[in-house]
């Protein structure tokens, strides 16, 4: 039974290739002919660890196409386009609605239509109601598949999910065969629930994570002013059964990348529209927006104020490791804010000058940012940054000061002899 993934954004590309790797016949459809051509040739427009290899081994099971008529042969059609967001992180569902309208005429009767795009509560039920009213002949069953993609771990997350969350209008009914075979191969619990519960579960997960990030950052700041060490405290918290070993407790410059922000803004809007107290959401978002100030004020305290135009080395431009994405990246904000007042040199393993226009110098070697620098600011958590060349730092920098925004060197700070080290929570 063939399953189609329509809308080959990051989510669609990973999901379609992942589904094909299960041995399931897969159609990956997009209207962008150039994208389809690239995918057919094995050229991926996104970076995810393991994805290229997965495509290579699954090639026989996946067809990339821009012919929408090909949907007529599919038993399940999954709308997998990521919901675009504005600079204010507001979701624009219009492209998803347009995509659904485009595919509808090509669906075979009794096909299963699955929404994987990050829609807001109520979307799927309305879609089902509209379909039942406009095309009762098709008897389309609508499902919602909660995606839990993490940039940089998308393949792992797709192939080894902790659970699958499926929203439907009949949570007690069996899942369609077109999907159940593949789900069984993923080997995890499948939780069926109402549409609205599934739509909100994704947001609930992200709000919990965002609140955890806020919690960790708040406590790290308290540590800095009372003389505590957050690193010492983390194990004590993780061993509390109510908090747990996987609790997100690493302080940072906040969440970025667009996904958490999108979901929080979505539920914030729902709260405001329905009269629900959105205080928690308001403060988590506002706190996150201000979190960037940590590095600004640290640079102010340690780097500026000495009369000379400072030289600042920057490691990390993407919003986190293992991704090409710079969406909402604090590093880019840092460059916008400081390029006029300081000489900035930057390096990132995934970003080149061709990727982003910047009024600074992008160096080709990681440690070239150190030359004559008054500070090295580590903006994200690429693994590469956890193995610094300490003697090179001491020799090459004008002042061997490291401001570590990601905590990537925290566990090794006792090995940083000769380095002035500043990190969150210390």
């Amino acid at each position, binding site marked *: 039974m063939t399953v189609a993934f329509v809308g080959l954004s990051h989510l669609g590309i990973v999901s379609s290739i992942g589904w094909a790797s299960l041995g399931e016949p897969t159609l990956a459809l997009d209207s962008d002919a150039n994208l389809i051509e690239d995918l057919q040739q094995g050229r991926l427009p996104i970076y995810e660890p393991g994805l290229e290899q997965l495509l290579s081994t699954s090639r026989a099971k996946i067809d990339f196409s821009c012919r929408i008529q090909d949907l007529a042969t599919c038993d399940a059609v999954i709308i997998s386009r990521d919901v675009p967001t504005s600079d204010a992180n507001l979701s624009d569902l219009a492209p998803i609605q347009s995509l659904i309208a485009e595919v509808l005429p090509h669906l075979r009767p009794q096909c299963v239509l699955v929404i994987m795009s990050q829609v807001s509560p109520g979307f799927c039920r309305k879609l089902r109601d509209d379909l039942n009213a406009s095309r009762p002949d098709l008897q389309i069953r609508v499902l919602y598949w909660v995606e839990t993609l993490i940039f940089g771990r998308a393949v792992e997350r797709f192939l080894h999910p902790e659970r699958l969350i499926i929203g439907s209008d009949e949570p007690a009914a069996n899942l369609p065969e077109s999907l159940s075979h593949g789900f069984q191969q993923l080997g995890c619990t499948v939780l069926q629930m109402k549409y609205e519960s599934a739509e909100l579960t994704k947001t609930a997960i992200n709000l919990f994570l965002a609140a955890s990030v806020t919690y960790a950052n708040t406590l790290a700041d308290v540590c800095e002013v009372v003389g505590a060490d957050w690193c010492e405290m983390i194990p004590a918290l993780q061993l509390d059964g109510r908090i747990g070993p996987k609790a997100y407790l690493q302080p940072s410059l906040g969440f970025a990348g667009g996904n958490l922000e999108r979901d929080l803004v979505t539920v914030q809007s729902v709260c405001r529209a329905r009269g629900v107290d959105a205080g928690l959401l308001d403060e988590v978002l506002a706190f996150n927006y*201000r979190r960037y*100030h940590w590095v*600004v*004020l640290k640079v*102010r305290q340690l780097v*500026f*104020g000495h009369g000379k135009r400072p030289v600042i080395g920057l490691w990390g431009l993407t919003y986190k490791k293992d991704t090409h994405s710079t969406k909402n990246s604090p590093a880019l904000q840092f460059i916008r804010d*400081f390029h006029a*007042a300081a000489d900035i040199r930057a390096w990132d393993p995934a970003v080149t000058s061709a990727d982003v226009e910047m009024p600074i110098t992008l160096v080709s070697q990681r440690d070239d940012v150190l030359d004559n620098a008054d500070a090295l600011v580590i903006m994200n958590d690429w693994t590469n940054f956890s193995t610094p060349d300490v003697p090179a730092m001491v020799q090459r920098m004008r002042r061997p000061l490291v401001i570590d925004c990601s905590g990537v060197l925290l566990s090794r700070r006792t090995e940083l002899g000769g380095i002035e080290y500043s990190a969150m929570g210390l």
Partner: protein
Amino acid sequence: MARAVLLGNSGFVGRAVERCLLRASLKVHGFSSTTLDLNQPAALHRLDSLLDGDATLIVLSGLTPEKGADVETLARHLGMLLNLGQHLQERTIGHCVYVSSDAVYPLRFSPITEETGVEPANLYALAKYAGERILSHACQVSGSSLLVLRLTATYGPGDTHHSYGPNRFMQMALAERRIQIFGNGEEQRDHIYIEDVAALILRLLERGATGTFNLATGASHSFREVAELVRDIVPDAEIASVLRQGEITHRHFDVTRLFLTVPDFIFTPLDLGLRAYYQACSK
């Protein structure tokens, strides 16, 4: 900036700002309440020839709390601002600067940023915030740029307000060799040296800054710390503690916006500012 027009040039901040602008060789026209009564609308026409697209208007006029904290004072204060607003909305000027106060913020939030919600707790704070809104409206109508500066506690020679903190401590120490603090002086406040205020206003104007800025150093100190610094500067001064009247509150500022606009500005450290204060008063 072809010329600066100062309203309120005889006040503590006004005098410092005028000196700073003159040192920068700028053409300055200063007015006080005795030379231009803002409560008289007709008086504002004296400014007609001065206020144009090349002018920067700096509004320091106001009725500080020691001049009255009652409704009548509020009415006079608002009257001044309304007359000024009426006048400004009819002419486009290069830049308008309104010196407001951190009194517009509640004490329960920390750290304060420019996004912190305002909550004027007394009539003085209400007048200051009203001034912000009145001039914002006037500038919007006339197409003028507006810079609003919310000033934290300002100290230095020439202070006339005797507010609790560095000013009162220094003045008491000089006059009586006695510095009185409430309780143990635990409250944390951000204190900015008067010369830094004036220099920052000039720097922000040079940068063409608009919008709202909190003028604060970003470093708060307890009243006890301040008292101890004054005691160590003024010979034979002693600290006396009296019963606290109200609850302990603190105020801290996140000065990211200010820092990013003028990243090379160096604030006068509190101990140096107090020392300069003492030296100025000792002459």
